[in-house]
């Protein structure tokens, strides 16, 4: 008797083969989904890191943190998230560095920060017991703060005021001293002795291309001789110092760097984005274009003794025809005597987009898009000097971008002026 009948395996064999195929396909599919999820998680964390970095910059808007210290904050509910925020001064701007870390994902962003001041004001003229006199095709658009004597029209060499309205905006006769620049003491200190920590000295060569990140040490070139910058490309965390004079030629490409010397001259058609610091004079020749955020800062140590009659050379900031500066232009002197010299001269067809701040005499023949803070205006026309006169000047506070950030005047609200490396 046969106990076990032989069962044929033919069909079962096929079943097994098909099952294995199905299982392999299933496994492939599930592992695909799993990998996709892991990649998704990674991208979510990376995206979160980017968002947190921007939160870091928003944090810098409303919170003041001390310079050169690393502040660690956690912005999200994740306990593996940490953001390091640090800030350091860079000329009249600040450098903000935010680094967000979520698990293995990190994101770092560096920006030049300017202060966001209340916009809408076109002119702040300090109380100098004189009325502001408008002559020729002068046009002021925006709110103004004037001395008690206010504003009136006048005549220079037979030219009267051609406008229909004195000021296109609100007039407040409440002027006092000029509003304070909050980081002035730092600027003074900086011009006297730039910081010597975290720097490395370099030498400049012709045809040099140098790109220094703001997360690394500052590269400094220092000389006691006259320096001509030409055929060179410098970008980022670089300071050029001369204790005599610096001349910049159009073949020099400067971006985000600081140029420091008692006398700085920018030759015709120089283009770039950099900050100029001087103690005697800054001269921008025709066609110079300084893009945002640039700045011209002249902190006068002592007033020049000799009365200066030569118009081509002024002890201050001179911006020639067709030159353009996007950023703050600042002249500051502790000396309170006004005299009849021009400290900032903005020539016809020259334009400043940003702030012009002058503690002495401003001779404005060109155009300012933004705001003017000055102690006094001066107009040198037809061989005479007219105090507190504006001749063919244009000031317009509405043509400046609402995203403009510049001088540190109002309460602290540091916002991104430019993303840098």
């Amino acid at each position: 008797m046969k106990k076990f009948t032989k069962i044929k395996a033919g069909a079962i064999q096929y079943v097994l083969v098909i099952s294995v195929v199905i299982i392999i396909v299933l496994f492939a599919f599930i592992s695909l989904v799993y990998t996709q999820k892991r990649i998704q998680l990674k991208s979510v964390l990376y995206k979160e890191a980017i968002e947190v970095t921007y939160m870091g910059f928003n944090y810098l808007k409303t919170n003041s943190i001390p310079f050169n210290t690393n502040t660690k904050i956690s912005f999200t509910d994740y306990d593996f998230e940490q953001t390091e925020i640090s800030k350091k001064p860079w000329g009249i701007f600040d450098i903000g560095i935010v680094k967000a870390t979520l698990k293995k994902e990190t994101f770092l962003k560096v920006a030049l920060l300017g202060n966001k001041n209340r916009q809408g004001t076109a002119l702040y003229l300090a109380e100098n017991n004189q009325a502001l006199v408008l002559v020729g095709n002068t046009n002021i658009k925006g709110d103004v703060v004037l001395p008690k004597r206010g504003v009136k029209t006048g005549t220079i060499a037979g030219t009267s005021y051609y406008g229909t309205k004195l000021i296109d905006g609100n007039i407040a006769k409440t002027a006092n001293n000029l509003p304070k620049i909050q980081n002035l003491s730092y600027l003074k200190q900086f011009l006297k002795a730039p910081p010597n920590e975290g720097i490395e000295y370099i030498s400049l060569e012709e045809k040099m291309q140098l790109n220094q990140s703001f997360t690394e040490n500052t590269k400094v070139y220092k000389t006691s001789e006259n320096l001509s910058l030409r055929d060179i490309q410098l970008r980022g965390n670089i300071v050029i110092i001369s204790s005599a004079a610096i001349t910049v030629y159009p073949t020099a490409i400067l971006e985000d760097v600081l140029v420091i010397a008692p006398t700085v001259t920018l030759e015709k058609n120089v283009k770039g984005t950099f900050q100029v610091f001087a103690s005697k004079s800054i001269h921008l020749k025709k066609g110079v274009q300084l893009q945002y955020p640039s700045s011209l800062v002249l902190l006068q140590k002592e007033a020049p003794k000799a009365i200066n009659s030569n118009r081509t050379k002024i002890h201050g900031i001179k911006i020639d025809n067709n030159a353009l500066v996007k950023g703050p232009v600042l002249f500051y002197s502790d000396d309170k005597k006004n005299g009849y010299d021009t400290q900032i001269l903005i020539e016809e067809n020259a334009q400043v987009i940003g702030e012009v701040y002058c503690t002495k005499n401003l001779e404005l023949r060109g155009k300012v898009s933004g705001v003017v803070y000055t102690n006094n205006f001066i107009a040198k026309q037809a061989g005479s000097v007219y105090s507190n006169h504006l001749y063919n000047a244009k000031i317009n506070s509405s043509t400046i971008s609402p995203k403009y950030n510049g001088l540190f005047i109002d309460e602290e609200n540091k916002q991104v002026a430019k993303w840098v490396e």
Partner: protein
Amino acid sequence: MGRIRNLFTRKHPKVSASSLVETIVATVIIMIVFGIAMSSMLGVVKRTTENSTYIIDSKLQKLSYLYQNNELKVPNTIEIPQWSIVIKKQQEGKLTFVVFRATHKKNKKTRTKKAIALR
């Protein structure tokens, strides 16, 4: 008849067929395996679509952007299909956040997003 059968066997060799039981067992096994595969695949797909927060996340992102650019009042409540979003300020230590909290109307799931409060 015999002649016909001979004709068949001569020209076509005999193929051994499976028994009915065998075929049924095989079909059942294949169906079971296929069923398991389908259900687990469907489960994975369903979970992915259910957990997808893409739409609400991008909505929260947009609201936060609007807030940063002063285009959104706080506190505020916004209703979109399936989600309701509550926006309010919240103090955490030294920091003031604006919290965007979205709650799903059916399954009560929440998504939150924070932004630094403007001055």
